[in-house]
């Protein structure tokens, strides 16, 4: 992931390269958006014209796709993304209390980022870890049977 000081010019060059890599695949738009978000942490709206030109789509179509999917975001997240599972199995094991705890400790709501830019909080609907509910995903790592104090430890680590 590029850090927040990386000038956007580099991002433009990177996006051009990713477009060249992906544009000839059938149904290229999703793999391309994934590649951009994997590298930049988000899909900048400034990239829409380039993408639309390469894939022969309108800018509105690109925008429509990006915003349809919960996974894609158009703004840079914090250094870490924490996703709390809100689905039924996790609810049955106390995820609601975990959500409340996280929001209170981080002093933010879902889709927001802490003041120190350490953590962006997101909701997720099942991580396939329902046997060990409640579940939390921090970046690409899944945590099972998460208690409020486990969550505190995760937060402390992310802020360090």
């Amino acid at each position, binding site marked *: 992931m590029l850090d927040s000081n990386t000038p956007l010019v580099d991002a433009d060059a990177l996006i051009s390269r990713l477009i060249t890599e992906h544009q000839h695949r059938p149904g290229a738009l*999703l793999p391309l958006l994934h590649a951009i978000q994997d590298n930049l942490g988000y899909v900048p709206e400034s990239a829409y014209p380039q993408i639309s030109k390469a894939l022969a789509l309108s800018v509105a179509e690109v925008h429509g796709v990006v915003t349809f999917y919960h*996974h894609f975001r158009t703004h840079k997240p914090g250094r870490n993304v924490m996703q709390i599972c809100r689905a039924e199995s996790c609810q049955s094991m106390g995820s609601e209390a975990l959500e409340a705890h996280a929001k209170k400790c981080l002093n933010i709501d879902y889709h927001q980022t802490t003041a120190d830019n350490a953590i962006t909080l997101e909701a997720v609907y099942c991580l396939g870890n329902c046997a060990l509910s409640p579940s939390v995903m921090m970046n690409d790592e899944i945590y099972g049977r998460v208690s409020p104090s486990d969550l505190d430890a995760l937060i402390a680590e992310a802020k360090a």
Partner: protein
Amino acid sequence: MTTTIYIPRDSSALSVGAEKVAVAIAAEAKSRGLDVEIIRNGSRGLYWLETMVEVSTPKGRVAYGPVKVKDVPSLFDADFINAKPHALSLGLTEEIDWIKKQQRLTFARVGVTNPVSLDDYIAHDGYKGLKNALKLSGAEIVKAVTDSGLRGRGGAAFPTGIKWNTVLGCASEQKYVVCNADEGDSGTYSDRMIMEGDPFVLIEGMTIAGVAVGATQGYIYLRSEYPHALVALNQAIEVANKAGYLGDDVLGSGKAFHLEVRRAAGAYVCGEETSLLESLEGKRGLVRFKPPLPAIEGLFGKPTVVNNVISLASVPIILDKGAQYYADYGMGRSRGTLPIQLAGNLKHNGLVELAFGATLRELLYDFGGGSATGKPIRAVQVGGPLGAFLPESQFDTPLDYEEFTKIWAVLGHGGIVAFDDTVDMSKMARYAFEFCAVESCGKCTPCRIGSTRGVEVIDKIRSGKDHAKNIQLVRDLSDTMLNGSLCALGGMTPYPVLSALNHFPQDFGLPAETQAG
């Protein structure tokens, strides 16, 4: 002599520390100068015992669990690598009651083999099905799948053979096999376990499907929340390509089959097959009107087999051991086995593969061990967020598609989520509407608007406002959604809502005696 130790790479095992345990065991063995080989297997599915570590012995594997990093020195002190006893000893893995009582066909290798070792796969009967299939005509393969009685495990329970036959019958220069690996239902994780624990069985199943219907390209549409499955699948696909099990000339048969994993992007509705195809084409995942069926006009307008992971992963054993062998398991028109996923508030959560016909009660108590909190189990949701909530009085229902239909419930993907008596069922009904509102593709009004209105009406009921009128409004709204929605997202949200209302009326401020049986 080298001792082989198995430590899962399954993401649920990782979620409770399997990686750290593997690192600690490797380090401890090294510092003690012991010769061990660590194999990262899939999970056996006894999740309350993860991290479950197994040691290979001449008598079979011996298990220890749940192992935490702090237990590692004492395990070595007790000489566990020579299968000596320890407080965490579970005995011979195959003798553990939970494993012994199962009928594992689709999951036979999960937890047993190294998921990305082709040699291991073949040593455990892998690719026998494909080899048999390559000796048959497309129609003969399809007939075997039809005769096995296999019905789609993704939810709708449509006969897989009939679907394949439609694609086989279409004349087209290009056809596709698409694996629906979007597994969005809460309480379900068997697709994930197969993909992480035995990816070759899915690859083999898809290859057989391709050979059967004449499709040369396959896509696995994988939910973005499964990063470990992505890695395992891509590793296995690479190995299969190199060894000639995929590619332009599958095992020298002259038939081509190529396979690619595509990542989804966090939209539940993209598990619906037509929405999934739109997404694979790079568009918003809006549900398509049917007809045409995807079997006739599917991906990029071409004939396409769309099947769930478990449906496809069940095909190799059918082609290996025969249609009858598979059909001999099960009851009524529900043939074969179902990988059942126990989740939520249970003591022993995990994967249980059994022939159709076991009852919910057996699963919840014999396997699940009752609630995790020790309180009575009050409600159970089967079949994901669009499945009905079942009260105690229905726990003797056998797992069978038709038996569930009779009580206005669904088996879906076989996920079972238990709730203890602290659950507030009006809150669960509210959540069902809320989930539908968050995930609606927006194409039709009953779902898009109805779900949002549903949340508001339940809020009014919960605060006691115009109580009788609003209860009636929920029923009317549900009726509209049931009958007026284009797909099952809007069309089935009334299942959790109305079952909660009918079976647990007191949670909605109604007298308990109105409770339906």
